[in-house]
């Protein structure tokens, strides 16, 4: 008797719980789906279509010659001698800009973590270059800083009796990197500053008591503590800068080894009207981004997950 009633007594609630759970899952899916569908429509599907575009011969000037070509667009991209320099330009600009803005960001973060008079104002001034519209920043640097006649950089060089430099034509790569570094230093600084403020005072004081100097404390305690923040800054910074377009379009128009993948795609699609080949550049950009991102993403995802768990 007991053996037959026990399951009957247990079964209904478990059935009910399962049902509630199923309902729960469906409600969650319902809450998620608008955002997911929206993103699939506007990013995932276009990306798949881009891959499709990259396998067809398609020049808007000759619409009748449209047809499947397989990997010919990639071959053309490689043999025209545009693709490889664009990859090099993109990687170099990204690497230099990320490294320099990280170093400057670290310097400013350490300096502004100190007890500086007017610290709040200094921090406010420091974040401004990141907030300023990139198109405006590039123009300001091009004309009021780099210009050979009225640029303040050249005015300063003159004061020091140094020769005047026509930055955006003589050193196009350096010009783009300088503007990007200027814009992204505050970004790195903000992230590293958050890291510095999260440092435990006790550990620092203990190090001081143990007789560790400022430099030793910094390299042995602060830097390891900042590692996670540096990783976040580098990953997020690279993923944004790898798409760099604004300073290239405004400062150099892709001359002098600064033709990044984004600019090349723009040129090929919207000036050359060659959709097929431009799509190939888009796909290459994704591959490059994946390579750069996966290098750090695994570690980073752990960091995000650890920070987000209850």
């Amino acid at each position, binding site marked *: 008797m007991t053996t037959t009633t026990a399951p009957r007594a247990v079964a209904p609630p478990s059935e009910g719980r399962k049902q509630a759970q199923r309902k729960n899952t469906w409600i969650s899916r319902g809450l998620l789906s608008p955002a997911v569908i929206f993103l699939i429509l506007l990013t995932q599907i276009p990306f798949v279509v881009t891959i499709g575009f990259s396998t067809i011969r398609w020049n808007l000037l000759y619409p009748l010659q449209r047809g499947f070509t397989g990997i010919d667009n990639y071959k053309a991209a490689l043999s025209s001698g545009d693709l490889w320099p664009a990859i090099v330009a993109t990687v170099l600009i990204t690497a230099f800009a990320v490294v320099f803005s990280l170093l400057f960001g670290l310097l400013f973060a350490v300096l502004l973590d100190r007890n500086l008079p007017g610290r709040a104002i*200094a921090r406010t001034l420091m974040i401004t270059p990141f907030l*300023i519209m990139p198109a405006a920043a590039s123009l300001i640097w091009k004309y009021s800083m780099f210009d050979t006649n009225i640029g303040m950089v050249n005015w300063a060089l003159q004061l020091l009796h140094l020769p005047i430099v026509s930055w955006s034509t003589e050193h196009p790569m350096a010009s783009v990197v300088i503007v990007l570094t200027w814009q992204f230093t505050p970004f790195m600084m903000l992230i590293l500053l958050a890291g510095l403020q999260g440092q435990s005072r006790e550990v620092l004081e203990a190090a001081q008591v143990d007789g560790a100097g400022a430099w030793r404390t910094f390299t042995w305690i602060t830097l390891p503590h900042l590692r996670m923040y540096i990783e976040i800054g580098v990953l997020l910074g690279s993923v944004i800068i790898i798409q760099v377009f604004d300073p290239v379009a405004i400062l150099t128009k892709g001359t002098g080894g600064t033709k990044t993948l984004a600019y090349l795609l723009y040129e090929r699609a919207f000036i050359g009207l060659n959709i097929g080949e431009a799509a190939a550049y888009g796909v290459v950009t994704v591959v490059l981004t994946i390579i750069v991102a996966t290098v750090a993403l695994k570690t980073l995802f752990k960091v995000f997950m650890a920070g987000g768990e209850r």
Partner: protein
Amino acid sequence: MTRSAKNTLINIGTWLLVLIFFFPVFWMFVNGFKPEAIASSVHPKVIFHPVMTGYHLAMDRGMPDYLRNSIIAATSATVITVVLGIPAAYALSIRKVRSVENSLSFFISTRFMPLAAVVLPLYMILKNLDLLDNIWMLAIVYGAVNLPVTVWMLRSFFLEVPLEIIEAARVDGAGLFREIVRIVLPLVLPGIAAAALITFIFSWNEYFLATLLTSSEARTTPPFLGSFVDGRGQFLAVLSAAATIAALPVIAAGWIAQKQLVRGLSMGAIK
């Protein structure tokens, strides 16, 4: 050297570096108020009689229209990301059903997809539908670009809501809608504001998509500024004035919301 002397020296050095770093912004602001002849002079002047000529000229070039388009694109994108982001982030934090957790990596990988990967099909589709140069289409695309960041960021705020409060509401028989709107949203209002701010900043400043998907009617401010590159003659004053107007809304918003900025930039990973 005594400790305090050394400290003072570092303080002075820090301020010097900060001011050098800020100088281009300051110079932009100052040049906007100069008469063109002084702004474009070989000898930089700090003391001059300020005029509004640069601002008037910038406005005469049609800037009000570009600004209006920028406002429409940035605010609509912000509304889209918040409206779609809140339920999604809610499902990914407070409800936490295992089978939907995979969406987290979906959102983060979408965040990292370069614009170059999606712009051509979007352009061709909009072209065929005769919707190129339409400000609402640009706003929708901006909404999609910024949605992943918004979801991640909102999720990090939602995770901080104490479960007890939500459970208490459920015990009181609050429905799902009531639970979200009356209980959770008021608690995460600062987070929503921060997420909205990030979308607004990125949409307001965006140049690549704006250049490609708009041409005249729907042109936003960044491509308008970009058109100064082809200018002839002296135009530093009008350029500086236009750049100041274009940059000011975001600079002001960022200054006010400094504390939330780092959290938004790190997608909620750093608090």
